């Protein structure tokens, strides 16, 4: 069982929860940019939870499945079809053998996720099936998908094996994407960073009052923010320290950048903010040109929001599992 890549899309890569435990050796985590969308896509197809999925950006890939496949699409709302059949996201779809799944553009959001029952059967590298494009580590020697790639798909467990079908079949039930993929206009919660106090007074105000937009130079390493330049009271000479996804850095250009899943392991720019963990996927889903505003948060508030989201996600994962077992 495999999926052949007919068209790779704009930037499509295999990702899982990321490569943990090797940062001290210079190896970053990589991994999906929208964690809840990844977990839910796997749950919908009946995977254990941590299988690799395809993460695609702005335009999805076109794939041919050699045998019947159960798939789910989450994250950004992508135009998906098999022949003339349009497929919805946030639910399970059973595709007949030989199906060509065409993923087109996105109406909302920036990053979509495709999970397949059985998972993509690529070897784990340092404990993860995530593609680290900078370090050239992981599946496909650490590169994005190319036309002509053939991705093996793992063993399908008996209970959810697809029955023979001639046309795609879509489950009668699905998930409400809203809490996981929501109102793009809401401000993102930002903690003050260690060097926030070093910003000049105007920049301190601008950071929380003004509207920025996502630069087209954004990628899996960082979201770059255009619209306003920020300035320090005086230049800072810092030595390199370990970095994190969600850290807002201010390089000398004055253009703030928020590190993302493929953040480098170390860096030396002033850290003016830290995005609340629950809002990192929201930023990842903003498209180039989309507006971004920040509101100030506290560690207490962001911890509470993180705990609540985990509870909600856990409950939903259990419900999906029950539903699949009773089907």
């Amino acid at each position, binding site marked *: 069982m495999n999926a052949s890549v007919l068209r790779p899309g704009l930037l499509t890569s295999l990702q899982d929860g990321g490569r*943990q*435990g*090797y*940062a*001290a*050796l*210079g*190896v970053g985590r990589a991994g999906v940019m929208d964690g809840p969308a990844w977990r839910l896509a796997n749950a919908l197809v009946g995977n254990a939870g941590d299988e690799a999925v395809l993460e695609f950006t702005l335009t999805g890939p076109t794939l041919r499945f050699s045998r019947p496949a159960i798939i789910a699409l989450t994250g950004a709302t992508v135009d998906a079809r098999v022949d003339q059949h349009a497929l919805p996201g946030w639910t399970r779809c059973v595709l007949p053998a030989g199906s060509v799944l065409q993923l087109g553009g996105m109406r909302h959001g920036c990053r979509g996720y495709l999970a397949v029952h059985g998972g993509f059967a690529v070897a784990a*590298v*340092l404990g993860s099936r995530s593609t680290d494009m*900078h*370090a*050239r*580590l992981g599946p496909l020697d650490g590169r994005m998908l190319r036309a002509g790639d053939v991705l093996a798909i793992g063993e399908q467990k008996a209970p959810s094996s697809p029955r023979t079908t001639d046309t795609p079949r879509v489950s009668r039930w699905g998930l409400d994407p809203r809490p996981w993929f929501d109102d793009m206009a809401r401000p993102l919660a930002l*903690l003050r960073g*260690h060097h926030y106090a070093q910003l000049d007074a105007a920049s301190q105000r601008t950071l929380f009052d003004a509207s920025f937009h996502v630069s087209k130079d954004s990628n899996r390493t960082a979201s770059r923010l255009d619209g306003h330049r920020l300035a320090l009271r005086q230049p800072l000479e810092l*030595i*390199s*320290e*370990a970095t*994190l996804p*969600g*850290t807002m850095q201010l390089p000398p250009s004055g253009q703030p950048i928020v590190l993302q899943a493929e953040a*480098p*392991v*170390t860096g030396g720019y002033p*850290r003016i903010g*830290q995005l*609340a*963990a629950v809002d990192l996927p929201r930023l990842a889903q903003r498209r180039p040109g989309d507006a971004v505003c920040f509101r100030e948060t506290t*560690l*207490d508030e*962001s*911890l*509470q929001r*993180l*705990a609540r989201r*985990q509870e909600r996600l856990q409950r939903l994962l259990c419900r999906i599992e029950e539903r699949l077992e009773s089907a």
Partner: protein
Amino acid sequence: MALNGAPSIEVLSEEAWLLRFGDTIDAAVNARVHAASRRLQAALPGIECVPAYASVLLRFDPLQWIDIGAATPGQRLHDAVRASLRDAAVVVEDVRVATIPVLYGGEHGPDLHDVASHAGMSEAEVITRHTAADYRVAMLGFAPGFPYLLGLDPALAMPRRADPRLAVAAGSVAIGGLQTGIYPQALPGGWQLIGRTPLALFELASTPPSLLQPGDRVRFRAIDAREYERLATTGGGDA
């Protein structure tokens, strides 16, 4: 900075703290960083420790370590960190010493000539000084297995190139400012290339995959072209 040299703690995010031991690039500070990092990693196995020049990043699962909603949510982690830094009983393995064979100059070290002119000495003198020093892996970063080494003879310091190379060969030994390092794979880079080692710095098949670990001591040994070829075919092995 607290008493008895305990680090200051900066809360970076819901899932990360930075323990800061200083704010300069300094061998003594860096040695404390690595001693603390090894201790913490041994005492708190679920927590990822990432040492840098003067700090250790702790990355943890907040749902496991932070008492969300409590009056002092991070107290448990704080106590665990303080206890493991204080606890002399935590066994820390000896610092390893790695010897890196290097073929200096020629096509493998195209900037050796410039480094020598910049330092006002002969190429041979640069090699003598580069191999005489004791280095320490201050941190790994930039790329998997790339060591930032402290301990360069200040006479050899040289700024980065104005026009970085698009591709530096794997194994290139280089000088960037007051530091020296080794490119583990072909990468773009702006450091001055003075030689090349036939050893593989980062191999996925090895455990751990990086030849050098944070805090390791490192020495360089000059080799000739014949030994370079021999080590390149046998995969080295004397480091």
